[in-house]
């Protein structure tokens, strides 16, 4: 899960006595392994995570943690457990979310089987981790908007890596706050060369693909080289702590849909309307292939965009998607946006 491994690792290393092994980076090999052992028409994140699991087991881990969501993501872990068992691996797989519900007692019990846990201490570190995720997302927001316009190449990424390193070593709540302020300041001092009133594009879509390292910053770089600014919404802080409230609020205001549509579909629909009203130049919708909730949302999203005459492009990522193919389609998309602007 990209950079979020820092807070997760921080939390686990403080509340358990387990040795934490970094999950290897997702490469083409990971995807290949994952696809080999996955069912045919499962959605792509399943293949990615299964590949990562197998690679981490080979690195020596024997306790794995899988998250979950309101769609079939919540059922990943049970099948993955079986697949790994059939492959001959003897591991413990802890699932954090079942049926869209997190049950802390169940997780505590499962964790207790493999390690000792102090509840009071865990709560304290949970709070710190929550704050850390929030700070990280705030800084990420700033990076997203500006990374494409950086003067010195890689200056943002370098500083971010430095920040993650010091985040992983913080001593307590106040230390975290201090570090956050320090780095936010440093980020703001990095030189950028941003044109006035750039073309603005927003990205909506399914959560895994949006937060995945492959997608991270790739689109931003690509588009910023043509002077386009990007806005993204979904991040971990939003998913874990703000989503349920905000969706209710959005649904009340929105007239396109009456009910919740599962996973992120309803957020994306409400957001698309908001974006259209705010006058964005274009919208990019990304999802992994076979993502059922998003498939249900897509016809509604394109209908809204057609009403406002705002261009939208749909990307569907699967195990075989290459950057080049996406680049070509993106190029055509922003050429069109530029032509619309100059009219």
């Amino acid at each position, binding site marked *: 899960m990209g950079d979020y491994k820092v807070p997760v690792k921080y939390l686990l290393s403080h509340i358990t006595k387990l040795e934490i092994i970094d999950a290897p980076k997702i490469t083409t090999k990971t995807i290949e392994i994952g696809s080999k052992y996955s069912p045919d028409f*499962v959605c792509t994140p399943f293949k990615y995570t299964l590949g990562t699991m197998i690679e981490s087991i080979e690195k020596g881990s024997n306790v794995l943690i899988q998250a979950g969501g309101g769609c*079939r993501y919540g*059922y*990943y872990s049970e099948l993955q457990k079986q697949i790994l068992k059939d492959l001959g691996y003897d591991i413990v797989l802890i699932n954090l979310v079942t049926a869209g519900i997190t049950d802390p007692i169940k997780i505590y019990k499962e964790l207790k089987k493999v390690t000792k846990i102090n509840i009071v201490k865990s709560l304290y570190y949970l709070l710190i981790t929550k704050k850390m995720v929030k700070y990280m997302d705030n800084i990420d927001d700033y990076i997203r908007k500006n990374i494409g316009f950086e003067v010195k190449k890689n200056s943002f990424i370098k500083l971010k890596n430095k920040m993650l390193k010091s985040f992983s070593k913080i001593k307590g709540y106040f230390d975290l706050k201090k570090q956050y302020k320090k780095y936010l300041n440093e980020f703001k001092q990095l030189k950028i060369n941003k044109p006035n009133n750039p073309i603005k594009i927003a990205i909506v879509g399914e959560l895994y693909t949006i937060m995945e390292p492959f997608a991270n910053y790739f689109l931003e770089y690509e588009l910023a080289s043509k002077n386009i600014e990007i806005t993204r919404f979904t991040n971990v802080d939003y998913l874990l702590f703000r989503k349920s409230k905000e969706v209710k609020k959005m649904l009340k205001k929105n007239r396109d849909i009456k009910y919740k549509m599962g996973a992120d579909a309803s957020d994306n629909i409400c957001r698309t309307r908001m974006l259209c009203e705010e006058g964005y130049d274009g919208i990019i919708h990304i999802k992994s292939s076979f993502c059922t909730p998003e498939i249900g949302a897509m016809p509604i999203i394109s209908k809204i965009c057609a009403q406002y005459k705002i261009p939208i492009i749909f990307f569907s990522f699967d195990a075989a998607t290459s950057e080049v193919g996406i680049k070509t389609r993106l190029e055509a998309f922003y050429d069109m946006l530029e032509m619309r602007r100059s009219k």
Partner: protein
Amino acid sequence: MDKIKIGIPRGLFYYYDGYFLKNFFEYLNFEVVVSPETNRIIIDEGMKYANDEMCLSLKVFLGHIAYLQDKCDYLLIMRIDNYGKYNQTCTNFLSLYDLVTNLFTIPTLDINIEYTNKENMYIGLKKICQKFNISNSKIKNAYDSALIKNKKHNKNLITINKNKLNKKGLKLLLVAHAYNINDEYIGKPIIKYLENNNINVIFSNNFETKEILNLSYKYCPNLYWYYNKENIGSIVKIEDKIDGIIFLSSFPCGPDSLVNELVIRKIRKPYINLVIDDLNSLTGIETRLESFIDILEQRV
């Protein structure tokens, strides 16, 4: 005055609650229009409205709505969210109502089933009837009468299903969602083919729901999809009385892709996994079924 026409599309929820809803509204003097059995024209019509990655069952459903849109005054759509905390449905059922209202212009009536939010069938029907100024006592009567008819209907199907277990010859369990088994285009041709070959086909959807729901925990302890629980529970219930299992799903069904794979890894019976999509010809499937039956006959 002409009767008000209510259209019920023959797809997805129809195969669970359609019979009940039809009786309910007919008791209240509505005219109920049910779309005909699925045919090629309906599927092609559905594909015009559908997104290319939608599952076949949903495409069929949209086709039925396209058929009904100029033949009734109101369209009845059920949105089924859950039957309790751990009895959820596939997200297609969640988005059904909003999808239809956005794709079509015909006026709709909706029933929301969301037990965690205290919304059930009776409350949904009441909301609809209030629009037409129907008194509460009348609703209650219609509801009860439809419920009794529905129970009888289901009981009948369950007995037929049970009796097949005692017959001679090969016995196969067809594991699929009700809307795939009973669909003229998806499940029926396969059933016909099997029955022509003197095989007793037992349907996973015709069991007593209460009884089999909890049985599914044997194979899938954390399963939370209501309809898949039914399917898996039926396997557990009669596994030692049958000769083989046929898994049938529509491409690319979300829950089935995970659950069927998991169960296939755990069962000890011969099985065949059929996936139907909109381009399928029956010949390919028949060849596979034929060899599957050959294997089973040799085992016996």
